[in-house]
């Protein structure tokens, strides 16, 4: 269907805007913010694929991706702060 294709294209544009910020970002925290946002946009992608195909294991991938992306963001933020992970 044409409208689903349109959603995918708009989400792809979002991904490319994030990638532009990752490539250009003047400081390191800019890049980390863009990586965080990219992780959340990918969850939307996976949810759209799940509703397109009707298979529910894609939603498992979305949940796992959301949690692991959160862990990565926290680890990078702690690294920026100059601490190790368990402080």
């Amino acid at each position: 269907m044409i409208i689903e294709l349109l959603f995918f294209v708009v989400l792809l544009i979002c991904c490319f805007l994030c990638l532009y910020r990752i490539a250009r970002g003047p400081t390191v925290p800019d890049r980390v913010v863009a990586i965080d946002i990219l992780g959340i946009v990918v969850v939307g992608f996976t949810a759209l694929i799940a509703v397109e195909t009707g298979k529910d294991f894609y939603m498992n991938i979305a949940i796992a991706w959301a949690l692991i992306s959160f862990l990565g963001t926290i680890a990078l933020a702690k690294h920026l702060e100059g601490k190790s992970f368990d402080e």
Partner: protein
Amino acid sequence: MNNIIGYIIIGIGVLFNLFGCIGLLRMPDVYCRLQAATKCVTLGICFVLIGVVVIVGFNPLGVKALICMVFILVTSPTGAHALARGAYKSGVKLWKKSVCDKYKDKESK
């Protein structure tokens, strides 16, 4: 009928995503970017997942979408908070036209 309502909700969510990513490009410093991007993208993904629930109904896929929405709503602001703190501690300055900075007083004490 459910399909049409669901697709309209997903469309709203995708538009919010797009505005969030435009905010990521246009804002002048890290903190403003974090604000625009986190809020718009979180609400956008929530709308997308609600649209998925409206389309498929309350079968396993829909329940998983609701759980994923709760996870995103809990984790995304926590990540943003940690990132803002990390950015400030790593020495990124506020935008030059900023009005006030109360946090600096505490750091210098």
